[in-house]
């Protein structure tokens, strides 16, 4: 109980920090984002709407007219109501609508590829650690080099080889544009087909990290006394490997999920750009290139909340798979 409450409190603190960071950044950095936004808005035919100006000022700063505290309170109020302003790059769409349209693409793509990469990396790492001293050891440096490859570079090479060269996969996009988005079999099939290459990029680039971490923990776990006991008990090798060694070795990988997830999310943003994927990463870059500060801010918040949420879930799972954590009443 104490464990879960502590975790929840921590993520609330982290969420508050992220929200505040989002408030502070535009006010600390040089430039006059509100004027730029208003100019853009006018170009798009938005007119000099005082309400729009006020909304942007709440988000980005009034330039000293209101006190910071007043700004902060109205900023938090807007967030609570889900009002993130109007996007200038997708004018006249609201930021929240742009995000709602692109977020599912990213969650499915990045979520599934991360899960796949985690399972693959941890599984391979367990085997490589268990079979230590065999040819499998060479998998470790090989996958480590792969994880040092920039995501976007790998993505472009894959596109050049598999899409342009062999024509196996589409060049870009999230689905065949002639289809109407919806839950039809044809559309879902097209979305899966378009998602294979981006997913492959993410899996190839991130699997090495999981593999290395798991392999090292596996090697450590194998010299623990409980593995010796399991051997003395005459258990089969497969059982010792899975129930005794891997079951313990996986704990640090799960505990370190937060760090790895950060890398995957970062890499995925650039990957989306390469594939012109209709996800939130592409939208973030589109926002940056168009000085669409409101959209930028909104997407940063949403990505952060999603990452925090994923980490919270993993932490809750951790409490479930390691009984010692739940019982530890004092913060370690």
């Amino acid at each position, binding site marked *: 109980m104490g464990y879960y409450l502590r975790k929840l409190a921590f993520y609330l603190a982290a969420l508050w920090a992220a929200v505040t960071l989002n408030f502070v950044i535009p006010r600390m950095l040089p430039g006059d984002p509100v004027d730029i936004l208003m100019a853009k808005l006018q170009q798009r035919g938005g007119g000099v709407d005082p309400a729009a100006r006020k909304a942007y000022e709440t988000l980005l700063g009034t330039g000293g007219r209101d006190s910071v505290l007043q700004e902060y309170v109205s900023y938090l109020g807007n967030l609570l109501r889900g009002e993130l302003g109007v996007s200038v790059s997708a004018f006249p769409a609201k930021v929240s609508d742009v995000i709602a349209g692109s977020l599912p693409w990213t969650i499915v793509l990045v979520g599934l590829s991360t899960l796949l990469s985690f399972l693959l990396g941890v599984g391979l790492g367990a085997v490589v650690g268990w079979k230590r001293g065999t040819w499998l050891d060479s998998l470790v*440096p090989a996958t*480590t080099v792969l994880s040092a490859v920039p995501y976007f570079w790998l993505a472009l090479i894959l596109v050049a080889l598999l899409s342009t060269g062999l024509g196996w996969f589409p060049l870009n996009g999230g689905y065949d544009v002639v289809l109407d988005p919806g839950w039809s079999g044809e559309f879902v099939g097209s979305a899966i087909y378009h998602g294979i290459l981006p997913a492959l990029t993410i899996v190839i680039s991130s699997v090495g990290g999981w593999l290395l971490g798991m392999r090292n923990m596996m090697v450590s776990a194998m010299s623990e006394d409980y593995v*010796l006991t399991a051997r*003395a008990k005459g258990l089969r090798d497969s059982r010792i490997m899975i129930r005794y060694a891997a079951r*313990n070795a996986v704990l640090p990988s799960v505990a370190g999920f937060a760090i790895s997830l950060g890398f995957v*999310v970062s890499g995925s943003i650039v990957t989306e750009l390469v594939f012109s994927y209709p996800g939130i990463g592409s939208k973030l870059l589109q926002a940056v290139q168009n000085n669409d500060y409101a959209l930028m801010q909104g997407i940063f918040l949403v990505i952060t909340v999603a990452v925090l949420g994923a980490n919270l879930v993993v932490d809750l799972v951790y409490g479930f798979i390691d009984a010692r954590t739940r019982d530890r009443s004092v913060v370690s």
Partner: protein
Amino acid sequence: MSGRWQGLLPRWSAKLGFGLGIAGAIVLFGLIGPLLTGDPATIRDIGLTPPGGEHLLGTTVTGQDILAQLAHATRGSLLIGLLVGVMATVLSGVFGIVGAYAGGVLDEAFSLFSNVMLVIPGLPLVIVIAGFVPPDQRGTGTISLVLAITGWAAAARVLRAQTLSLRTRDYVAAARVSGERTWRVICVEILPNLLPILASQFVFAVVLAILSEAGLSFLGLGAANSSTLGTMLYYAQNGFALQREAWWWFVPPGLIIALFGGALALVNFSIDEIINPRLRDRARRERDVVAVEAEITPAEPDAVLTVRNLNVVYQSATPVHAVKDVSLTLRRGEILGLAGESGCGKTTLAYAINRLHRPPAEVTSGSVTFDGVDVLAMGPEELREFRWVRLSMVFQGAMNSLNPVTPIRAQLQDVLRTHRPSMSAPDREVRCAEVLRLVGVDPARLGAYPHELSGGMRQRVMIAMALLLDPQVMIMDEPTTALDVLVQREILNEIVRLRDQLRFAVVFITHDLPLLLELSDRIAVMRDGEVVEYATAEDMYLRPQHPYTRQLLASFPSLTGDAGALIT
């Protein structure tokens, strides 16, 4: 002092050499390359010339020499990597080491801050910050600072954990008590021990910075007027290098990043091996026993386990002969005591009997016969079926002998599932409860995790587990050493009672000779791998032959006069 520093240097290995070689070559290319190649910006009318001739790596779409660009870009990327690496390492040191060392509120605050920074995704934050800063104000310094600020937290967490454990070590405590200044303790006592971790985190930060910068530049958000591998890729992509099949323009920058990252990862493997010696390369050895011709001598009529001239050698750089020519006989229902100080080879002997010894230990000669069967000649599957069914073990540290993440029920049932596959689930449950009752543990504790049990309870559970299959022999390696005297006595009584009731034979290993005098039927005293005296308990007590035995007996004066007091 030199010994202390030696442990901090990586051991030379092919991986380390290879990694340092590649990384060194790339650094050298970044340092010297720009001096040797021409101006990377010179435009010529030979756009997209393939590699060869005057332009070793070909030209860009505007005829610029790619080798020259690559040299300058490598220098730019390395510079950013170095800047960020240094800044991030300093930041992680401040928040990780200082906080953990100071403890209290400062540690809590720093740790919370690090963890929050850790869960906030880095690149989106960098993109947002870079998006707000106008391009003309985005210098190399600004970009490096932003990358450092978003990249130090993971390292701080590792450093904090390590510092917390170092802080409690004796020599650090001694320095603190003797009134040394805080900064001096940190610099002299703590930092040297953290060097491998700092080095590995620095290397990691450099790679991460180069990768992140490449990503930023590729997005057009890099430092203004900078030339890095990322900007090269940006121009290559915007010049449609791949679409025009100008792979020589697009591939080399990415390859340099990947090679540099991979090479530094290889270096990091070597550093990891310093931090965690268990990771060191070890050739896998399929063989734990050198082909031994078992001369099964006619065993004594009542013998269940016979060890003849057994030799075990640790085949390291300087081979250690841990067990020398040991011969022992264990009769049915007998308790055989094995005494000796730590390091005398008694545990190695016990493991070798069951072939549990790990590489580099190897049985070089001798025989182990169990009920007429040669244990050393058994195949893997035969050996697996032999273990626990005929011979079970109770290990020294009950603390770590149980799997910490599963309830004890699962660990007891494992044995039955494997060795009694036909047993039904309710029968298994009944049997587990039965053995727990035998050792005086409430069967309700079956659902408990090891950490929920006391040390004595855990040892009882281990004994219960050893009883599950009614083995003929039980090897107990210091089963009561870690327990307090009262619990120790209870468990010893339990063992003797169970032996009398169930008639299994016991090899009881301990450094406590007087204890064995009361417990055992016969005793072997080991020293430096050899059995120096082997006699009945009575003979050994009344007429010790070997000077070492007499010395051992004399070292427990309070008990020698009162034999029988411990076991009632």
